[in-house]
């Protein structure tokens, strides 16, 4: 008996994988049904539905990049303190000192790539008409995922706390000040400032809400850090789960009728 067979016949191995290797038809079916990760997929699919030239694999790649971002992101969190004193120097140390510094590169390029792949995924879904019934609602969930992907990237952009970061966020968040009714420089904010009460001030308008202050400062860093590392990823994970569930329930990847 070879070593491989010995391992595969051990009690430990068989407690993990509850069936023989997927080398024949029966076990290839069983593996899809019993493995937690694989059960995302159906057992069998139409050939054209999984053809690379049809789906471009873009949804899958986006998901994979999300996982890469999660893993590299957790590693980065070990080295990064979101305070004005440390943020910049912790990032600098990643470049100059830390062995795992390349995690930052992978994390940043992965984020750029994810923005691009999520667009391309939407592009493909549109061009194959895959948002048409019965998949309308999954498209809506997709649009939410698109927004959240952009917001993930946007909140992460601030964290290195260099010139590039704060000015990009300043430009972006200046828009919030122009929100109609709720921003101090938006049309109609006077509507809420009638009868002597100043509801909309520079310490209460939409920009203040976003930044946690009047300018991009320590409170902003903290706010964006929590959004970037906890809040948005949690929501995205939930929506991805629903998205995948719906792909299955809506009849799998779209096909000509």
């Amino acid at each position, binding site marked *: 008996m070879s070593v491989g067979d010995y391992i595969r016949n051990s009690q430990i191995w068989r407690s993990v994988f509850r069936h023989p290797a997927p080398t024949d038809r029966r076990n290839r079916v069983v593996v899809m049904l019993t493995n937690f990760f694989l059960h995302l997929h159906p057992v069998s699919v*139409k*050939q054209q539905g999984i053809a690379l030239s049809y789906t471009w694999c873009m949804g899958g790649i986006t998901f994979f990049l999300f996982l890469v971002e999660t893993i590299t992101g957790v590693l980065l969190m070990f080295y990064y303190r979101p305070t004005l004193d440390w943020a910049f120097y912790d990032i600098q140390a990643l470049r100059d000192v830390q062995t795992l510094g390349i995690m930052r*590169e992978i994390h940043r390029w992965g984020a750029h790539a994810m*923005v691009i792949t999520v667009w391309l995924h939407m592009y493909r879904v549109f061009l194959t008409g895959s948002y048409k019934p019965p998949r309308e609602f999954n498209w809506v969930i997709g649009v939410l995922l698109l927004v959240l992907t952009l917001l993930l990237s946007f909140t992460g952009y601030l964290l290195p706390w260099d010139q590039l970061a704060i*000015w990009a966020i300043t430009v972006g968040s200046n828009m919030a000040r122009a929100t109609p009714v709720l921003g101090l420089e938006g049309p109609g904010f006077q509507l809420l400032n009638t009868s002597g009460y100043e509801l909309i001030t520079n310490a209460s308008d939409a920009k203040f809400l976003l930044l946690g202050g009047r300018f991009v400062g320590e409170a902003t860093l903290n706010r964006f850090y929590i959004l970037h590392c906890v809040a948005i990823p949690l929501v995205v994970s939930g929506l991805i789960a629903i998205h995948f569930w719906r792909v299955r329930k809506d009849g799998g990847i779209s096909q*000509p009728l």
Partner: protein
Amino acid sequence: MQHYPDITSSVLTGLGWYYLIMLGMNLLWTVRSYKVDGNFKNGVPVATVWAVVASLLMMLSAAHFSSAGSPDTFLIRLPMWFRNFVDANFSNPVIYFVLSIVLFAGMILLREWWTKPTVAWTGLNLSLLFMGLSLTDYDFRQIVGKPDNVPIVAMLFIVAFFTWIYFTRSVDNDRRIAEGRPLFEQENNEKVLVWPDLVYTELICMVVLTVVLVFWGIALKAPLEEPASSMKTPNPSKAPWYFLGLQEMLVYFDPWLAGVVLPSIILGGLMAVPYIDFNKAGNGYYTFKQRSFAVTTFLFGFLPLWVALIVLGTFLRGPNWNFFGIYELWDVHKVEAANNVNLSEWFWELPGLGGIPKGSDFGTILLRESPGIIVTLAYFFALPPLLGVSVLRKYFVRMGVLRFLVFSNLILWMAILPIKMLLRWGFNLKYIVGIPEYFFNI
């Protein structure tokens, strides 16, 4: 001002590698075109042409590797007159936008032509060559070579590639439909087991991506500028690259529209797409003819209005958000005259109207801006019903009132950007409605 690595010293070697990769690609292409319809002889003339191209690329690559000079004096570089010509004639947003519209129209009208493998491949080679030659220019290099901008250059090629796939597959399917043959997606469409057919593809995909990311991470350092300082405002200050299309809209609209209302409408509009597109055809396969209106609208929004504006904002907008040619130095002192006027200013100066009403009470402001307000209200409220009984009657009948109103309003919102651009360029129009007293400018 800028703290990006100057890649001048390594650019010649880099280009050597660049042309070497092009050489490899063209060798594969030569082999591919050698064999036509399974017969080797048919392809000889075409293959010869590509073999010549490949050997030229080989010489190009060798020349770059063996040269020790600087790219500014190297024999193979863009001639100065060409750079000056491009900078002098292509450096304003009007030309840029018009060119992108022309390209867009050509892409749709000539789809049967440019999707042909040889045409598309020639196009790819030409654009790569243009990139390579342009990299010998210092100013071009400084902007395109910024670490954060490299992905955008890659994105351009990737978007072009997938657009090509789409049109190739649609042209093929449209032909099949016309001839009554089954769709491409309906052929060879047996059920297969997910293990191994899908899981192996996924595994390979993951491995390849990991390798790509690691190499990318080694080759290109993530940018890190000076520590943040609220005293020193960089010029230009740019939002993250994926929002630069929105930042570009700030040229034409105030922040409340460009930064808040329009993005919300884009997202709302995207979510509404499945509920307004009543066309049942084209679900689950590539086609252009069966849904030409939907696809054209979407492509128009994505290519000229989103991707092209990002490219414009990233590569062509310099200090003070001025437009710079691709080979032009980003000079902080460049001034562009801006003497734009509001619609109201122009209207009340018309003979016999007696000049613009002055006063800051609400009534006077309303009177002053009434022309613009009427135009705007007419655009959003009178135009949809008019369209519904005329040009878009077909849609109105099939959609019903509510759906049609949503649909036509979304189209009108999408159109305001090009409309405002044209008004600005053609008539120096600043605001259609300008009420700075209430931050309400359109």
